[in-house]
């Protein structure tokens, strides 16, 4: 139902220089359909007014990285034919409880506008938004063609909201609520999918705690012949997984339920044959509470696996080693640090095509169990081992309790193509444990060697030196996360002056003050956002910034009355929508 706009060909302007102007819009729009990436589309829209118009009529997917940077009315005015919306809300540090609840990012105002502007909307992909049951119900009833709902790290809704989606969305293909904080009122929502409903292609309810009716789930899986992605929750047992697999051998992504002792399982061979029937698996996750005796049942599907998510599975190194021997094509691996350095050595010897590794801590808050010189958890030697065996590694998230500058230098020498380097030394301000020096040289070697680096998270004891390195070398850096680091304003200044592509900067507990904040005056309009908490900012400094840069929203979160001068939590972002109209009392817009 695209509404075509007919441009009158201006017959007087047919000279060669103007030939591009008489190019019919319909043709240009047809060409632009192939331009999918929103950054490319932004570039297209800046060429000239005709291209701006052709682009806006042909755009079907809009990506809004900060829901407060623009209003839904503005979006609807500019883009008449949107089918798919991606919206991101709260600052990322919300995930770590640094942003108070009820901060905002409510989906509802967007739904109200889009219900009339885009009645044929098909997709919502939301991250860190607040979504209520009323909103989900409104969504389900307002968009008859609705197909895909993805809620990552969202909150505010309960299983009742899911019931509305299941009941009213006749054409649903995707329902994914991963890692959302949901009020779990029971599993009956799944039974709301009508018997006539067969279009489901992806279903992810791994984070729900309550049991769904297994019969309803089995019948749903059986009648949805296009189902490719199925991620169930902990309550689904091994025998139940076996039955689901028998119904849907066409699955490409599976998130298992509990993988432990199940009396109902007739035999291990049955389980293994159910897995062997699935020839198209590329992703495996779940594996809650694994009894290692059942792991061999997975071996048939490991051959084609490209993504293995074991981050909720407390595997030991030998179990992991045996499993990985069957996964030669693995590109992405997420594990818990229970596998230890030995486990990572197994990764290095089995998975030479590995591109992404994430190692999560099994016991991050166990502060008394300090590991030095080996023990549980992973150390610098596991990191080096992986880099030696996996030269294609370009994405790493690594939680550890000890690290050395030399080890990091070795890692990036082995793997110079890092685009995402996120190292978290869990003990705050910890130096190189062998030399007792700051970790400045480690991150220096990262930015000097990895010219394609887009995302960096630093940790350990760091002085301004580290930030000098970042500002000097990290010319492609887009996202930087800093905590408990730096010695003075100069650190932050180096980054703001030196990193031209910086879009997101999030800082907590660093000695950066007003001078540092104000040194970035020229930068913030080309960035998505800046977050600074527990630094040395004052209300005066923030007010000065707000006065000088009227197109930025400078927000201070004030949770107690005691210190009027200190700006405890500051969130700065560019916006064409002006100050928020829905700010709660603790958010002050300056």
């Amino acid at each position, binding site marked *: 139902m695209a509404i075509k706009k007919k441009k009158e060909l201006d017959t007087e302007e047919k000279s060669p220089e103007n030939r591009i102007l008489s190019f019919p819009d319909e043709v240009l729009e047809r060409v632009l359909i192939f331009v999918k990436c929103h950054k490319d589309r932004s570039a297209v829209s800046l060429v000239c007014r005709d291209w701006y118009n052709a682009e806006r009529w042909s755009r079907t997917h809009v990506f809004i990285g900060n829901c407060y940077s623009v209003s839904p009315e503005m979006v609807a005015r500019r883009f008449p034919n949107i089918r798919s919306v991606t919206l991101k809300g709260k600052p990322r*540090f919300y*995930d*770590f*409880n*640094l942003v*108070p*609840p009820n901060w905002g990012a409510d989906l509802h105002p967007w739904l109200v506008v889009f219900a009339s502007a885009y009645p044929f909307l098909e997709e919502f992909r939301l991250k860190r938004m607040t979504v209520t049951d009323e909103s989900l119900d409104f969504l389900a009833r307002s968009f008859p063609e609705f197909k895909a709902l993805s809620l990552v*790290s969202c909150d505010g809704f309960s299983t009742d909201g899911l019931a509305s989606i299941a009941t009213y969305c006749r054409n649903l293909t995707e329902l994914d609520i991963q*890692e*959302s*904080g949901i009020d779990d009122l029971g599993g009956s929502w799944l039974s709301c999918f009508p018997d006539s409903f067969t279009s489901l292609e992806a279903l992810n309810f791994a*984070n729900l705690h309550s049991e769904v009716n297994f019969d309803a789930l089995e019948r749903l899986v059986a009648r949805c012949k296009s189902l490719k992605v199925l991620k169930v929750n902990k309550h689904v047992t091994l025998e139940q997984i076996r039955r689901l697999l028998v119904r849907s051998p066409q699955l490409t992504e599976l998130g298992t339920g509990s993988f432990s002792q199940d009396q109902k399982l007739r035999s291990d061979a049955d389980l293994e044959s159910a897995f062997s029937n699935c020839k198209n698996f590329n992703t495996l996750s779940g594996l809650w509470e694994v009894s290692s005796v059942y792991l061999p049942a997975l071996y048939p599907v490991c051959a084609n696996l490209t993504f293995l998510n074991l*981050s909720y599975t*407390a595997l030991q190194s030998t179990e992991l080693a045996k499993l990985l021997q069957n996964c030669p094509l693995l590109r992405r691996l997420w594990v818990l640090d229970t596998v230890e350095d030995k486990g990572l050595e197994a990764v290095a010897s089995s998975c030479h095509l590995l591109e992404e590794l994430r190692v*999560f*801590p*099994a*016991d*991050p*808050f*166990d*502060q*008394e*169990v*300090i590991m*030095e*010189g080996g*023990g*549980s958890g992973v150390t610098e030697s596991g990191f080096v081992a992986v880099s030696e065996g996996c030269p294609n590694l370009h994405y790493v998230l690594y939680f550890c309790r000890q690290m050395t500058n030399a080890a990091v230098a070795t890692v990036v020498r082995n793997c110079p193509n890092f685009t995402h380097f996120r190292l978290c030394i869990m*003990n*705050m*301000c910890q*130096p190189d*444990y*062998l*030399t*007792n*020096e*700051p970790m400045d040289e480690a991150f220096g070697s990262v930015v000097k060697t990895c010219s394609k680096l887009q995302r960096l998270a630093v940790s350990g*004891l760091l*002085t301004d030196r580290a930030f000098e390195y970042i500002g000097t070398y990290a010319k492609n850096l887009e996202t930087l*996360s800093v*905590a*408990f680091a730096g010695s003075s304003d100069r650190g932050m200044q180096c980054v703001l002056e030196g990193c031209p592509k910086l879009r997101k900067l999030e800082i*907590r*507990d660093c*000695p950066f*003050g007003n001078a540092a904040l104000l040194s970035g005056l020229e930068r913030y309009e080309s960035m998505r956002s800046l977050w600074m*908490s*527990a630094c*040395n900012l*004052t209300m005066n400094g923030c007010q000065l910034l707000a006065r000088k840069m009227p197109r930025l929203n400078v927000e201070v979160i004030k*949770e*107690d009355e*005691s*210190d009027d*001068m*200190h700006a*405890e939590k500051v969130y700065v972002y560019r916006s064409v929508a002006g100050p928020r109209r829905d700010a709660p009392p*603790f958010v002050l817009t300056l």
Partner: protein
Amino acid sequence: MEGEATYVSDLDNLKATELRLGLPGTDAPEKPTPASPRGSKRALLAADEECQSKSKSLGADSSGQEAAPVAKAQVVGWPPIRSYRKNSFQARKAEEEAAGLFVKVSMDGAPYLRKIDLKVYEGYKELRKALENLFKCFSLGELSGMEGCNGSEYAITYEDKDGDWMLVGDVPWEMFISSCKRLRIMSGSEARGMRSSP
């Protein structure tokens, strides 16, 4: 730095970051304080002190090891793990602790604790060997066996479900692993006291 006076005066009221040497796990492991800027202020102060003391030791001739473990204050949002993942761990940890399989092992005089899974050992002999391996780097002397060897200074003890400290080796292995909550390798006179009691 503005607001410094406020930092210092707030310290008296700040129970949440009170340094404690109590048993681990006796408090709720980590309560995300919903609206507590003081938390981060104190964290900054604590972190600053730590960072300053660390930078002071740079360049000085230091052994590079800490003399004693610091019971670190819980800081809001650190390490940066999403709530969802955190909740999974805590649920699993609670399950594990209830099952009595993963236990902490402390050794008098050692700078840090270790953690072991009792399930992997078949009996007391294996356990003793494993403990020797774990702590041998401290060269604090040999572990006493359950046989009460002469000349050794240590006794392996455990805390059972009732909170009593018992000498390891007196009950059948299965009973031991189901009731053991944590292990402590005691030294000196305390050890002798344990060994000689009936």
